[in-house]
């Protein structure tokens, strides 16, 4: 008999699957399915020969009740069937066995059956230990047996729960908190858990449990009977519940078991089944997920709203001291802002904005009656509101001072933000993949606002005190908040969302009455809101060029401050991975370095930026015909901004020609140009940098009786040196060519060879130095500056002119294990001055005080 019954059941279930798949699969299906199981359970128990409980034949009365999704009549195709068999401790062992056996065939129906025998006392004991037992009792539904036993059971439970109400409430809230932290992570955002996740069915269950336990409402659907919840947005929530149940059923069928996690392959399949078609701007699955997020976000918000209100009733906080002054027309009732006098419906819609601002200012929420009316009003009269400058002003004020995040969220929920910024609709409920987001784009924008506000209040001071320091120094704070709200608006469109967003900004802000300067500022911020993050993680922060390029792109110090804070807020609003210590440290380093470059002014000024661009373009134009473009660009990449800015155009061209012709076996190439008006030759050279190159070059010149009048040194990232020396011409004009040839050979030897050349130079020089007199020996200055640059230690030397001084100086500087990156040396009648930008051989600035002292003393020694 049971076998046939099971077959019937299976057959009917199949029919149900096929029939409803085409239509709904929602609440109607789950109810019907639950009913099918009900009938089967009843039939099995009746046919089992168990005496009908409560009759004279059986002393032991019992009741079989469904719980869990079965109890809630939300049975999905993969759900378990959970039963509680309630009794009064009079059941014999054999009766229990019989009941169990009667239910056994349910396994053949491919239902995961779970059941326990419980008395009221046993249940109470378990409830105190396991929250899941408590919640199971809240979902109990009578299926078969003695109704009196069932009712008595519930009554006993209710009495006891009432006594221990606070304890149970606390545990429920704790459970909710744990859920939020577990499911609030990235992976659950990308592949949501329909039942347990945030905004999932469980949110609705929690609401129902609280309603039942504490508000005396048997079903959530009846909550509006409670006067405190008369305006609760129930119908929309129920609609969302139907949607989720539908998805859950499809998911169970697709995966063949109780899978509640909407994995990406499932997203595709379900989108297809539900016929979400591809559109120009989004694929079917994207549209499906967007719809899903609409419902998940809605349920989540509903649950937040519900819990806040419920807790207000159940655990009311001591009332805050009345705020100093509530604006006219408003008053505070039960801690919420309400309208004085007539209802909102009779007033101008402007009142809504005023109310939101007032509540925001006072950091309180609005009464739910008001909210309900506001939604209605905006629906019908919202459009007119948008055109008035007064309304725009009020809207802006709300956004620019987002003190109460719940109010801002409310503004979103009642459609206010969409009204003033229609483009915002494109990012509503939009999920975003990548970059560790845990929220849809619209909620992320609001979070960014919130982070900024908290930051300004010092919330991050413990770990990052600099944030507030920067925030306090801002003049155009408004731009920051505006940018925070719309920085990701471009995600609702195709293409690079930063660029697209910047394009849309003028339209949005113009509509709101923002000034041109502000529009430009916010556009810039939106367009570049990823610049700092990308640069800090993908480029070498130890290279001056990185900071210079960022500084040049931004130009103004305050814009850098704004961009920095926007970036920080964006990261923290995104999630913990995006705002890890690690990432913040890199960001901070880049910010500080770029800031210093901007403050110094030279390398990143507007002129410098334009000049740089012009020079590079001119260089390309000149050389692109002679050399492969790839090589040219690659070599340009190796040369620093300093080099380009400080070197005259034609010298740059000479260097690059030499550099591009350098074969791997070459160590030195140079070019000589005699200057017209004076007896000076310029040596433009490209060499493979090696320790002591500068001093050896100077040595070679000196050896050949050529006085070095000036020198400019630059080392490239790839190990080449681009130097320029201006030297006096060889004494004998007739033997010039020979002398230069010799000099070249010696220079080559100096570069490739070892220390012998050094020794030779030393010997020759020593002989001469004895006979030289030093000019202007009172000039003696050494300055070692570590603050001028984040990247180099700057050594300035002034000394009386003397033969071999430069060689000595260069040699001593090198011998101190210093690496000359840039140098400018100039000699006139009296003195020699040199500015050396150095790093130690490891590539760091010289920090060690003792070492700096040694350097200073050594140099002083040389120049005295």
């Amino acid at each position, binding site marked *: 008999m049971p076998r046939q019954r099971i077959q019937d059941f299976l057959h009917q279930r199949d029919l149900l699957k096929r029939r409803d798949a085409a239509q709904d699969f929602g609440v109607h299906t789950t109810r019907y399915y639950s009913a099918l199981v009900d009938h089967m359970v009843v039939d099995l128990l009746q046919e089992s020969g168990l005496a009908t409980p409560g009759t004279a034949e059986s002393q032991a009365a019992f009741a079989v009740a469904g719980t869990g999704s079965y109890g809630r009549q939300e049975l999905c195709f993969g759900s378990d069937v959970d039963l509680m068999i309630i009794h009064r401790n009079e059941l014999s062992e054999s009766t229990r066995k019989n009941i169990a056996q009667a239910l056994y065939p349910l396994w053949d129906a491919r239902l995961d059956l779970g059941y326990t025998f419980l008395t009221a006392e046993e249940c109470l004991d378990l409830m105190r230990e396991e929250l899941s037992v408590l919640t199971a009792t809240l979902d109990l539904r009578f299926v078969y047996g003695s109704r009196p036993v069932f009712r008595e059971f519930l009554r006993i439970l209710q009495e006891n729960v009432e006594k221990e109400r606070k304890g149970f409430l606390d545990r429920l809230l704790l459970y909710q908190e744990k859920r939020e932290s577990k499911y609030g992570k990235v992976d659950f955002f990308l592949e949501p858990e329909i039942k347990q996740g945030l905004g999932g069915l469980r949110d609705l269950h929690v609401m129902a449990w609280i309603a039942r336990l504490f508000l005396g409402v048997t079903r959530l659907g009846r909550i509006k009977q409670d006067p405190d919840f008369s305006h609760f947005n129930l119908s929309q929530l129920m609609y969302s519940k139907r949607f989720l149940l539908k998805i859950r059923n499809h998911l169970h069928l697709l995966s063949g078991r109780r899978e509640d996690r909407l994995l990406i392959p499932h997203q595709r399949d379900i989108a297809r089944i539900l016929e979400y078609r591809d559109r120009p701007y989004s694929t079917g699955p994207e549209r499906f997920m967007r719809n899903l997020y609409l419902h998940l976000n809605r349920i989540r918000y509903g649950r937040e709203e519900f819990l806040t209100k419920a807790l207000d009733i159940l655990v009311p906080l001591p009332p805050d001291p009345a705020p100093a002054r509530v604006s006219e027309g408003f008053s505070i009732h039960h801690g919420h802002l309400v309208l004085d006098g007539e209802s909102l419906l009779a007033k101008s819609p402007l009142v809504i904005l005023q109310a939101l601002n007032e509540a925001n200012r006072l950091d309180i929420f609005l009464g739910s009656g008001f909210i309900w009316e506001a939604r209605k009003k905006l629906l019908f009269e919202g459009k007119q509101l948008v055109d008035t400058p007064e309304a725009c002003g009020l809207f802006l004020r709300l956004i620019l001072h987002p003190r109460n995040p719940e109010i801002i969220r409310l503004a979103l929920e009642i459609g206010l933000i969409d009204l003033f910024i229609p483009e915002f609709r494109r990012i509503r409920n939009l999920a975003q993949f990548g970059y560790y987001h845990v929220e849809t784009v619209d909620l992320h924008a609001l979070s960014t606002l919130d982070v900024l506000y908290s930051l300004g209040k010092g919330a991050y001071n413990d770990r990052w005190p*600099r944030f507030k*320091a920067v925030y306090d120094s801002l003049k155009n704070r408004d731009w920051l908040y505006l940018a925070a709200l719309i920085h990701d608006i471009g995600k609702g469109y195709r293409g690079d969302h930063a660029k697209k967003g910047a394009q849309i900004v003028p339209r949005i802000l113009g509509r709101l009455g923002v000034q041109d300067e502000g529009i430009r500022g916010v556009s810039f911020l939106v367009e570049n809101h990823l610049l700092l993050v990308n640069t800090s*993680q*993908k*480029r*070498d*922060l*130890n290279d001056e060029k990185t900071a210079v390029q960022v500084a040049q792109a931004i130009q103004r110090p305050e814009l850098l401050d704004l961009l920095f804070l926007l970036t920080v807020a964006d990261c923290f609003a995104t999630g913990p991975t995006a705002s*890890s*210590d*690690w*990432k913040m*440290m*890199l960001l*901070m*380093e880049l910010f*500080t370095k770029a*800031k210093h470059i901007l403050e110094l002014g030279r390398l990143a000024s507007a002129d410098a930026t334009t000049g740089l661009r012009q020079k590079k373009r001119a260089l390309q134009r000149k050389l692109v015909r002679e050399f492969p473009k790839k090589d040219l660009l690659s070599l340009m990449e190796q040369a620093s901004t300093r080099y380009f800015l400080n070197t005259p155009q034609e010298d740059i061209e000479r260097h690059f020609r030499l550099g591009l012709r350098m074969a791997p076996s070459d160590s030195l190439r140079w070019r000589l140009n005699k200057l017209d008006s004076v007896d000076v030759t310029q040596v433009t050279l490209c060499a493979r940098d090696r320790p002591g190159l500068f001093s050896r070059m100077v040595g070679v010149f000196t050896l050949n009786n050529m006085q070095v009048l000036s020198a400019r040194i630059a080392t490239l990232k790839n*190990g080449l040196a681009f130097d320029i020396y201006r030297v006096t011409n060889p004494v004998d004009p007739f033997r010039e060519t020979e002398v230069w040839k010799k000099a070249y050979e010696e220079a080559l030897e100096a570069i490739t060879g070892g220390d012998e050349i050094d020794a030779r130079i030393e010997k020759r020089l020593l002989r001469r130095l004895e006979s030289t007199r030093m000019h202007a020996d009172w000039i003696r200055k050494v300055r070692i500056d570590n*603050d001028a640059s984040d990247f180099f230690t700057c050594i300035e030397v002034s000394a009386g002119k003397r033969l071999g001084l430069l060689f000595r100086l260069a040699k001593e500087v090198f011998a101190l294990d210093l690496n000359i990156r840039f140098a400018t040396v100039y000699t006139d009648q009296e003195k020699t001055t040199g500015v050396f930008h150095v*790093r130690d051989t*490891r*590539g*760091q600035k010289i*920090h060690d005080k003792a070492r700096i002292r040694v350097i200073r003393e050594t140099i002083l020694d040389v120049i005295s």
Partner: protein
Amino acid sequence: MKKIEIIMKPFKLEEVQEAVLELGVGGMNVSEIKGFGRQKGHKEIYRGAEYVVDFVPKIKVEMVVHDERVQTIVEAVMNTARTGEIGDGKIFILPVEKAIRIRTGEEDEDAI
């Protein structure tokens, strides 16, 4: 089998990853770490206030490979991760006793 552990500058990740993948390495783990060696930290000065940064952000890449591959991989990493300046990082090579693929139970060479 050997485990290769690379600690390097953050901005080098993409390059090193590409270079190593080109050599046919099946997979790797990447972590964001902070550390210091001889590079120590540095000081950042902002508006007259000094902030000492003790640890420097680095990237750690780990992979387990066949013994014969170690040499070429190390060379490739050296070529790409090097900037010549302090803080370039280090490579460690450790012996691996056993490797097991969880899904199939394959062991050792078959698992990597």
